[in-house]
């Protein structure tokens, strides 16, 4: 089965879900989510069965990288994230219905819920395509597929002011960054005369390339990509949008959108980093961005009182570690499997596990409380020891405590930076990790050490599939934290 059929299946699945929503009279529209989960599980299985195409001469392969273990890995991330987002969406449906359904006569009591499950499928297809895009055109189209469906999803809770505000902010800034991206692509095309990344890389590394123009193109592209992955100083939209969006969509944004942003980042910066005349300046700019992102993300997370905002800053902080890896490209000539690409991929894999776990717990807790403030997690250990334990593991991993996946992510980044002699960057990284230690464990402490001061103290119900997903994520966090080869092995 060829690689691209996976995207087709996912799109078809999304269409089927829309049709079911429109024509089948369901008593509980959450069954649409079950269809999606089942379908995605099948697609995830199919990921391991794709074949390398024999003939890659056709025009199609100029837009779509034929064989790439990284692309497959990122497709896996997209599928898994969407799967968990659907699980979260099912848990979250009460809130969605409350804040969307019209009170019209004769309408289904859950009207508007179906699209909430179908739209992520299209986003997922876009993300999967993005992972394989190797041409400026296909990168752009895939990116827009993702972004446009996110515009809708972010503003989905139309009776909620916060969600609408988030939607408008995301739309305006997203459109602006798209403008930067296209302008950068235009310059890149002007310099190299090609839209294909391999050709661009070749042209950029020739000695007679126009350095000023290339750097200008890089700067424009960098602005757009920094926006997508949430790197400082283009991170300002993140806290507001994350806080306003429906929780499952926040998770989606913070994991899948970031992962896809980084694979594009890797692909687009590779030609510049490989070019002898540009690498110095490009690395310098990346270093500055990494340091800024690390410091801003981590230090601003410390005083946060709202859990979603805290996770928003934490996602900025993790973007900082990832850009740090990118800025620590090894000295040329050392054949090494520990490249920024491997490290970033591992980091994102680990980040997926721990962030999704945190959001999953949050979606469940949110359904039994009225707010998303950190205070509502006080005494969670007494209300639901399992949820508190899951959150503890997730926080420990985000903080980078050994034996969890998050530790190896940070460790590989630090090692890369040490080998590249990026001492300043390493210092900022350690400072950031220390701050992270504080704000992640603050949550753990409030769950275990303080008593709830709200009257809600009955146990929280968790349905079977959510509990199962949490257990899988916890086991995976430990497994990858003890044996990182489980993730790295997938890349070779």
């Amino acid at each position, binding site marked *: 089965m060829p690689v691209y059929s996976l995207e087709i299946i996912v799109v078809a699945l999304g269409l089927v879900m829309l049709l079911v929503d429109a024509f089948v009279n369901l008593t509980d529209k959450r069954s649409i989510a079950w269809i999606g989960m089942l379908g995605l599980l099948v697609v995830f299985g199919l990921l391991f069965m794709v074949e390398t195409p024999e003939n890659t001469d056709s025009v199609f392969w100029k837009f779509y990288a034929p064989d790439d273990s990284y692309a497959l890995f990122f497709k896996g991330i997209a599928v898994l994230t969407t799967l968990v987002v659907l699980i979260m969406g099912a848990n979250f449906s009460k809130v969605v219905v409350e804040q969307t359904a019209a009170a019209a006569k004769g309408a289904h009591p859950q009207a508007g819920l179906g699209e909430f499950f179908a739209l992520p499928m299209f986003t997922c297809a876009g993300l999967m395509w993005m992972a394989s895009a190797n041409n400026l055109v296909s990168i752009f189209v895939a990116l827009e597929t993702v972004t446009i469906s996110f515009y809708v999803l972010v503003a989905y809770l139309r009776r909620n002011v916060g969600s609408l505000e988030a939607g408008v902010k995301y739309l305006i800034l997203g459109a602006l960054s798209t403008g930067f991206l296209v302008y950068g692509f235009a310059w890149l095309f002007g310099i190299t005369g090609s839209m294909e990344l391999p050709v661009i890389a070749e042209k950029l590394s020739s000695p007679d390339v126009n350095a000023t123009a290339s750097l200008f193109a890089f700067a424009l592209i960098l602005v757009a990509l920094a926006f997508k992955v949430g790197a400082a100083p283009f991170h300002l939209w993140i806290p507001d949008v994350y806080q306003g969006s429906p929780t499952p969509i926040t998770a989606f944004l913070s994991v899948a959108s970031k992962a896809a942003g980084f694979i594009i980042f890797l692909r687009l910066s590779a030609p510049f980093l490989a070019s002898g005349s540009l690498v110095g300046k490009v690395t310098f700019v990346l270093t500055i961005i990494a340091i800024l992102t690390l410091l801003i993300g981590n230090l601003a997370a410390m005083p946060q009182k709202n859990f979603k905002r805290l996770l928003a800053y934490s996602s900025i902080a993790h973007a900082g570690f990832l850009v740090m890896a990118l800025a620590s490209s090894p000295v040329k000539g050392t054949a090494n499997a520990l490249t920024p690409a491997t490290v970033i991929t591992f980091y994102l894999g680990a980040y997926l596990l721990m962030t999704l776990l945190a959001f999953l717990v949050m979606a469940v807790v949110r359904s039994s409380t009225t707010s998303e403030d950190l205070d509502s997690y006080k005494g969670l250990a007494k209300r639901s020891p399992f949820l508190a334990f899951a959150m503890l593991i997730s926080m420990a991993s985000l903080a980078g405590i050994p034996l969890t996946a998050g530790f190896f992510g940070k460790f590989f980044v630090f090692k890369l930076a040490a080998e590249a002699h990026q001492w300043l960057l*390493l210092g900022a990284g350690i400072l950031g990790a220390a701050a992270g*230690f504080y704000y992640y*464990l603050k949550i753990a402490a409030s769950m275990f050490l303080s008593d709830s001061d709200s009257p809600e103290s009955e146990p929280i119900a968790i349905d079977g599939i959510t509990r199962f997903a949490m257990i899988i994520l916890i086991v995976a966090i430990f497994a990858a934290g003890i044996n990182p*080869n489980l993730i790295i092995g997938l890349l070779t």
Partner: protein
Amino acid sequence: MNTLEIIVFLPLVAALAIGFGAPSRATALGASALTLILSLVMAIRFLKLTDVEGTIFFESSRSLLDMEGFPQLSLSFGLDGISLVLLLLSTIVMFAAVLAAPKENEIKGSSKLFYLSLLLIGGGAIGAFCATDLFFLYAFHELALIPTFLMIGIFGHGENRVRTAWTITIYLGVGSLILLLGLILTVVGLGGTTFNIQDLIAIARVEGIPAESQPWIFGLLLVGFGVLVSLFPFHSWAAPAYAEAPSSVTMLHAGVLKKFGLYGLIRVALPMLPAGAEQLTNLLLVLLLGNIIYLGLVTIAQKKLDRMLGYSSVMHMGYVFLGIAAGNEIGISGAVLLMFGHGLSIALLFALAGWMRDKFGTLEFEKLGGIAKSLPRLGLVFGFAAFASAGLPGFANFAAEVEVFFGAFASGSGEEIGWIRWTTIIALWGVVISAVYMLRAYRYLFFGPKPAKLEIPGDLNWASRAPMLLLLAGLLAVGFVPELLNQFIRPAVEGLSLGSAG
């Protein structure tokens, strides 16, 4: 799966079992007793082997990551004499701590969480001492730290317990990160190809890290490990934490887990960064005098037993650092022996303090007095423990301190009195200081007039005596026959072959 792996994983598996609903006290007791027996078996098996210097025995290794460019990572364990002694210390204290822990129905809150955390702390320490892979050495220690924080916050005494839990979390967390940075730089500096400690040492001997960058890295390791061991001036977390933690946790942390930092210096920092160690010796000497003299005086000024014990444990770390600073065989042997002796004696003292806090409701010297007359057994055991801690002959601590002082004095070269000899001379006064505060405490508590309000409970019963007698037996046995442990330590220290520093 060999015996050593079973020893390492038994407490962790038992903790898991408790998490899934096994009876907590029974499981914890069974697991810790079994690890103690197995570690004694290891010691006996070890005796038949010690004709080779400095080799790691009973090795087991499971490769986890072996790929070009990544450091080799394997889940590997092994023992040499030093880690064997610390393994014995861990298993003895863990068993005693579980024995001394309150019964399930006396615990406020979840008894499951209490026993599970105890086993995690003990198991983490055992894992850290047995690991021959740098990553797991670090990781097992962290595994033990996190339940320590939780235990202080949830089950601690006093109103400030959450604040104290926070302080130690941040303090030790940042310390661990500095340590991590130092370890990463060490591994990268030594080629970045493996995490295996023996391989790294072998690389360091052939072509080490350049001498000019060694002091920086050693400094990071010294601060990182130093925070964990409460080296002056990074000591301020220790006394409040020990005073407010449940006594079983204090027994395990002060007795066992804190030794990790010292172990790390001996196992990692000294052999991998010999030049850095040599250049920073004088700095270490100044800091350890801070521990011995300054904190010794602070100890004398304490008005509560638990605080006093907390500070005394910080103070005694100074001697261990002196042995390490000496860098020669006798000094380091003494340091290892002192870790053992101090571990047992401080665990014993905290067990006693915990018992007294439960029965009397207070540990303030002012409110207690004249106990010896009505509770002679308590007075006797406490007396033994106090003498042991102050370093009286007949206890392990005495033998160890003598070795440390001889080693430190001998490591000064030539006729003149250099830094280390001066330090030794000043440090000797620490013995007087310990005697002062221990005897003062003993007088306050056990002699003098009995305050009118004080109600006298029943004396130590067998259940509470058992863990104390176990610890006391260890102290006396090693005190009278230090060779019991020295026969393990000596070849291992010789194997370190720390020529340059000594």
